[in-house]
């Protein structure tokens, strides 16, 4: 089981703050690409487009990942979708 988190404008775009990804346990190690594929039918087209926009960053276990689609995931991982930040 992999926990998926959505923050700020993305939380609103997808209409939920968390989602659970349960990859096929028999297959090869799940990747972010398979997570996104499983997520797509659960979302409105606008929500999926928002998540995959160029300025959205993805964190796995609270570390940003680049070239995220090819990252291997494992049970217990936490994947987060983060829109551009605006602190301070």
């Amino acid at each position: 089981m992999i926990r998926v988190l959505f923050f700020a404008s993305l939380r609103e775009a997808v209409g939920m703050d968390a989602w659970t990804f349960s990859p096929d346990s028999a297959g090869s190690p799940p990747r972010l690409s398979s997570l996104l594929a499983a997520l797509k039918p659960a979302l409105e087209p606008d929500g999926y487009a928002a998540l995959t926009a160029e300025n959205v960053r993805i964190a796995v276990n609270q570390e940003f990942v680049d070239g995220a689609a090819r990252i291997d995931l494992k049970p217990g991982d936490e994947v987060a979708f983060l829109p551009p930040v605006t602190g301070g």
Partner: protein
Amino acid sequence: MACIRIQAGDFSVDQEWSALRERLDANAGAVAAFVGLVREVHGDSRSSLELEHYPGMTERSVEAIVAEAEQRWSLAAVTVIHRVGRLRPTDQIVLVLAASAHRSAALAACEFIIDRLKTDAIFWKRETAGDDTRWVQATDQDVERAKGWAGN
């Protein structure tokens, strides 16, 4: 030597200043500080600001900014407090204190930290004024200011 807190409640500049000062020895000649306050949105005194964060990752993003400041300048002590949750106009939102032997390091570190908090710390702001609510976008100016430190 750094004190970093993310909290919903208000902070006391007085208490933080006193606590920082106790951590200083007689070689610290300069403390630079910055306090951010919530501004009214479009002159609406009933507007509000809501700050969202990612518990755990947000703290580490602030720690990374402070660690970079500590690498660039010789700092005697640093305090960063950033509030989250719903805030009102004139509320305190962020505090940065940076102490050093000399003023140039204290001033530069304080400015560096607040500039980077704007662009690299994991917070999201939503403004609400009347019926209108929107997520705040980073300004080009903020991004330029933060980039300006890369060459230094």
